[in-house]
């Protein structure tokens, strides 16, 4: 995607940290869950930036942090040229029009006591963008059609819909205000295979028609590969590798990315790929390992990995990786 100089990038995130304090018991030591431990990236207009990682890697916290639904510990979030990191709830209110979210669980993310019309109309009413309730109704019908639902669905309650249809309702709600950035947090992981592809296609189609920018968060690497222009791989609150899609999937550099990619079962029963099986479990974000957080599970672990957290190594201007294997190389060159 070409970034025009005139309009600023929809989203720039700089060294974002979110720590949750935890205290075990009354006299327990105060510790921190480092859900996000220094994350930086930017998303260009019209781009889909995919974030992939396993449970506990902080990808959902990232979504909540950018939407300012959790308290930031430090770092900057610049939305459409506006630094919103320190905005209060009331300062955020008008800004919320610009960021919209699609949630993972289509059952939990819609209020069961509201009709589809009320759900989709909620953003319109909150931000008072329609002049009359007739206009609201028209807009709701338009949105429902856009996501492939019928007019008559508007009067029904969410509990009457299947998972895929509910996700469409959620998407309609997120598009009501023409947002600058749509954060989709695992939007298809709760759906069945045949419904998943419908929703993925719908998201691509909407992006094309409405010139949307997505932050797409998922644990499924094939889904992320399909939908994203650029991809960031997260592990324990940090990015380990960020690259444009083709380069990442053709030439994964970080040992973790390599292991993730090799762990995906292929649907070709004849394909015999070399599989990297990572030992052990994902460590708790409370007691993250020293140095490179991945080192206890890494096949290429070197002494330095236990000591020092790796710096960003720029491989190409679009592909960078946080791994000592590549900083070493830099030094030699």
């Amino acid at each position, binding site marked *: 995607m070409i970034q025009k100089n005139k309009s600023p990038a929809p989203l720039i995130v700089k060294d974002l940290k979110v720590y949750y304090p935890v205290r075990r018991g009354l006299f327990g030591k105060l510790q921190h869950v480092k859900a996000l431990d220094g994350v930086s990236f930017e998303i260009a207009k019209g781009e889909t930036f995919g974030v992939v990682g396993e449970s506990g890697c902080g990808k959902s916290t990232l979504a909540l942090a950018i939407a300012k639904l959790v308290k930031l510990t430090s770092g900057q979030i610049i939305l459409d040229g506006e630094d919103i990191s320190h905005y209060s709830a009331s300062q955020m209110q008008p800004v919320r029009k610009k960021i919209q979210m699609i949630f993972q669980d289509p059952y939990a993310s819609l209020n069961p006591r509201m009709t589809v019309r009320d759900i989709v109309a909620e953003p319109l009413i909150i931000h008072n963008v329609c002049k009359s309730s007739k206009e609201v109704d028209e807009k709701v019908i338009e949105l429902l059609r856009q996501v492939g639902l019928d007019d008559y669905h508007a009067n029904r309650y969410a509990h009457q819909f299947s998972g895929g249809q509910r996700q469409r309702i959620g998407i309609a709600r997120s598009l009501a205000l023409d947002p600058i950035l749509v954060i989709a947090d695992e939007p298809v992981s709760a759906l069945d295979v045949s419904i998943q592809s419908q929703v993925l296609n719908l998201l691509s189609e909407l992006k094309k028609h409405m010139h949307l920018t997505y932050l797409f968060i998922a644990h499924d690497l094939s889904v992320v590969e*399909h939908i994203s222009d650029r991809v960031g791989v997260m592990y324990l609150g940090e990015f380990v590798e960020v690259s444009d899609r083709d380069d990442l999937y053709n030439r994964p550099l970080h040992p973790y990315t390599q292991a993730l990619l090799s*762990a995906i079962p292929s649907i*070709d029963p004849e394909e015999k790929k070399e599989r990297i099986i990572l030992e052990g479990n994902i460590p708790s974000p409370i007691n993250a390992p020293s140095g490179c957080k991945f080192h206890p599970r890494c096949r290429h672990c070197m002494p330095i990995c236990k000591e020092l957290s790796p710096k960003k190594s720029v491989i190409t201007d679009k592909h960078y990786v946080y791994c000592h294997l590549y900083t070493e190389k830099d030094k030699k060159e």
Partner: protein
Amino acid sequence: MTDRKNILEVKNLSTYFFTDNGVVRAVENLSFKLQEGSTLGIVGESGSGKSVTALSIMGLFKGTTGRVVEGEIIFEGKDLLKLSEEERRGIRGKDISMIFQEPMTSLNPVLKIGEQISEAIIEHQNVGKSEAMEQVVQILKDTGLPRVESIVNEYPFQLSGGQRQRVMIAMALVCRPKILIADEPTTALDVTIQAQILDLMRRLKERSGTSIIFITHSLGVVAEMCDEVLVMYCSRAMETGNVKDVFKDPLHPYTRGLMASIPKLGERVEELYTIPGNVPNPRFMPKGCKFAPRCSEAMDICHEEEPPFFDFGGGRTSRCWLCSNGREVK
């Protein structure tokens, strides 16, 4: 292909749930065979009846409204459905055992790991507590768990999801069952942990020769783990056959649709293939082929009459009128 002995044969199995809101036909007229030492994958979307098939074989309907209403499940020459509850209990956990999808909730939170595994041994083998504990330690070591001696005295909440699933596997295999039914054993796990568990199951199977029924919604897992596959849709089998054959050349449009609609690594397309529409409401089932309303190749007959199975030899069958060139199975 070599003809091995069938260790399990399911014939015309129908299982219904009698709910307050009417009868739910969860499994309808399902037949399949499991060959000794092989792995059969049952694949389908949620609500397709794959888990209920497993529960029917195990006979685990207590406390639900479910009941097998028809069919035979033949294991070692005996129809399990004709046995008394007491006789089936003797088979459960000993000859046929099962692992479940949710490792977080499938273990009893208030009992120690060692206790939970050893009670199965004590139930089925005539051994004492200490001997049972030795077996527990051995099987846990086989599953690759670290510090086994202390884990036996720990509670489930002290273990991670992957570790719990290893415990579940140990529990299921401890009595050396002839058949292991694995119901979505890796669905709740992360990709790298899934890889560990699949690898473990493959190794344990090589060693013990247990026949496995592997239930999953993931075609990739089937391709990786199974010899034979059974594709289910709307409580019915749609296609069966050898995994290589089915994945190379799927006969049923539903199988084809499923395979086409998942994003595949390395394959970059603008648009994914989609199967239109939703799974039909069980109470408003279409008249003919259950897939016809969503099928891009549906013909007039498909909406009128439900197709029978057409057999293509070597275990390959398809429930589709397009395959009527095969031999019709009654």
